[in-house]
């Protein structure tokens, strides 16, 4: 991984923030969320040009060679701007899974397209149960080298309907494997799922004798999946922390401007105390997300626990902040035209995307030896 200085990181944050201010403003988000693909292809191209599609992909494969710290930082900005993009699905989860598996041929063939943003990859992991564990996998693979066939269902697949490359977890007679599937192949049926968070794209994919090729795995397959999930969780935590902070900011601005009873509503203790509580929540989320990123970047012994902590702390901070924000605004935030509900929807989705807070809290106590 390339070493990136603090200055470079600051510059990265600034340029992402500028780009998103220009191209992922609220009106842009609303436009993108109404499209079938759910993201603006032109903005995605710009993000790719900046190196963000391949941010955490090694330079040898056309990526920027950055790590968890930079990812977390970029995702804070993405969360703040409610960015609609396949970054987490393709450039993070799928790319990191390929790296973790270590199938050199597949990396050479797939990563450059992913890094350039020209190919969208995604990971089909869980079935209808929606649990992000080996037990959640509901696809089976039969046959053998040169003639693998998949059966079963994968659901909650991020950007499944937009994907050029599907990496599918499936149980074969010799255990869990990751299979590459052409979304256009016979026996693959991809149905877009209607999502409560309109800025998100999920699909349910059924496989009926779908042809697949098995990716080589240098180590245990679930370890590789977990490695990819860990990085994705760091990204997601950043998104949640950044989202929470942005919501708090616009809510506090409103509390300073809105006059009732001849004074700004922020002068009422009820509002002031809610805002203070949310500051604690969102600052804690930022700390948790950055701590998880650091721990993962350093490959620290406590990295897994730091990621679990961030997973539930950030999910709950974002959920609480968005929910409280609507209350603090009053009637205006009950309208579709106000952005608060867009963040509420995103927060509620993010809190389930790779498993709910309760799951990560349990994982956390286990990682602490409990």
């Amino acid at each position, binding site marked *: 991984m390339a070493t990136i200085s603090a200055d470079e990181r600051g510059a990265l944050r600034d340029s992402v923030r500028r780009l998103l201010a220009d191209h992922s403003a609220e009106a842009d988000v609303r436009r993108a969320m109404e499209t079938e693909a759910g993201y603006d292809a032109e903005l995605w191209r710009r993000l790719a040009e900046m190196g963000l599609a391949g941010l955490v992909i090694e330079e040898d494969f056309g990526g920027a060679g950055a790590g968890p710290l930079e990812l977390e930082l970029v995702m804070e900005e993405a969360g703040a701007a409610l960015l609609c993009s396949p970054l987490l699905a393709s450039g993070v989860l799928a790319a990191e899974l390929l790296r973790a598996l270590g199938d050199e041929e597949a990396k050479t063939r797939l990563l450059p397209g992913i890094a350039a943003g020209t190919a969208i990859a995604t990971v089909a992991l869980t079935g209808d149960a929606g649990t992000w564990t080996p037990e959640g996998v509901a696809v089976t693979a039969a046959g053998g080298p040169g003639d693998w066939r998949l059966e079963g269902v994968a659901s909650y697949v991020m950007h499944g309907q937009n994907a050029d490359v599907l990496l599918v977890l499936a149980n074969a007679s010799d255990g869990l494997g990751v299979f590459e599937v052409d979304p256009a192949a016979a026996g693959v049926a991809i149905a877009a799922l209607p999502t409560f968070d309109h800025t998100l794209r999920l699909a349910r994919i059924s496989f009926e004798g779908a042809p697949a090729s098995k990716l080589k795995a240098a180590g245990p397959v679930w370890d590789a999946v977990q490695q990819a999930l860990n990085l994705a969780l760091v990204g997601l935590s950043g998104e949640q922390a950044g989202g929470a902070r942005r919501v708090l900011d616009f809510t506090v601005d409103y509390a300073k401007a809105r*006059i009732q009873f001849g004074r700004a509503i922020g002068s009422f203790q009820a509002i002031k105390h809610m805002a203070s509580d949310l500051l604690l929540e969102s600052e804690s989320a930022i700390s948790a997300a950055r701590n998880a990123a650091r721990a993962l970047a350093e490959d620290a012994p406590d990295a897994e626990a730091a990621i679990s902590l961030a997973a539930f702390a950030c999910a709950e901070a974002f959920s609480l902040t968005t929910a409280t924000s609507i209350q603090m605004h009053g009637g205006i935030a009950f309208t579709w035209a106000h952005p608060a509900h867009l963040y509420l929807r995103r927060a509620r989705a993010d809190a389930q995307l790779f498993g709910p807070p309760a799951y990560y809290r349990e994982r956390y106590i286990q990682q602490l030896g409990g």
Partner: protein
Amino acid sequence: MDDAAPLAPASDDQIRDEVAGWLKANWDPSVLTSAQAGRGEAYRAWIAKVVEARWAAPRWPVEWFGRGLSNEQARIVEREFARVGAPGTGQDRTQLYANTLLAKGTEALKAKLIGPILRGEIVMCLLYSEPGAGSDLAGVRTRAELDGDHYVVNGQKVWTSTAATADYGMLIARTNWDVPKHQGLSFFFLPMKQPGVEVRPLRQITDESHFNEVFLTDAIVPAENLLGELGQGWSVLQTALAYERSVMGEGARGPRSGVAEAAGEEPLIALAREAGVLADPMLRQDIARVIAYKKLNALNTARAKADLAQGTSSPVMSLGKLAMSRILHEEARLRTAILGAASLLEGPDHPRAEDANFLTLNAYFTSIGGGTDQIQRNIIGERVLGLPKEPEVDRDVPFREVRGG
């Protein structure tokens, strides 16, 4: 009303027998199960029948569709209706428009509208909130000016639920700008179907459009549609708000999916069973907690009802809306936790998610609408507990000089 002869006083047993006998002879449960239940002809006809038989508002005086029953006896009527599942009674507790009109309306307006309101023949709305006056309702800037035998109304209202179909709106407007804000207000029944009233629907976060913006431009309201005295609008409003809040404390719109829960089982338990997570000890604790919130609120409400004469408000009653707000928000969180990943979805193919999503959003109807939780807490602190009020900077200045929002 045509037949205003006083009814002979009856014992509790006589009342019980009479209402039970009447329900046996008249109640047809298919009114509720028919395709258009709640809105349709059969439902309307049933309510009209209840009104005609004087069961709709039995606490009310005989001149006004009632029987002059005591609170205890009226509760016997309500229990008999509840026993067979028949709607239509208890309007003397819950019908905020009719109660406000009965308490404060002119004879002419009462004669014209009380019957149709009880029978559900006319749709009403609340023209209170404005862009600059929500929690601070006494700060409204819509003006009403007397011109001969009517008032001319100009201004803008917002968040007006059901305005698009309403026949009348209960309007709070300023009639005097030279006195402090609470003293210059008056309360009217404004006819909605007139050229001076323009209703623009607003899209809600639930993706529905129940509430609206209402633009009033030289809208006309007959002088007889004034409730209470000129300049006494704030006190009329307090009567109306008390009814509204007590109703909001008793219930809220349920799931939107229309998918029935397993009969007889607590809906949250049924949902957890269906989702296969009923054995999860953490969820079990949460389910018990939320069901307990609901049960305790129902008990509180029942106690308040039993204690009190109609129209008065009790400490327990003012807690109801706040309690309901917590119930709805907590239930939404719990339903989401029970569903897990399935809560990511929406739409008709995912009715359980649809229910959780809708509740997540619509819970704000109760925690913001009708006065926010924060305002409700202030009211409880000040009026129930007698804690000192916060100083109000604009309370005693002529409204003209008050800073707008």
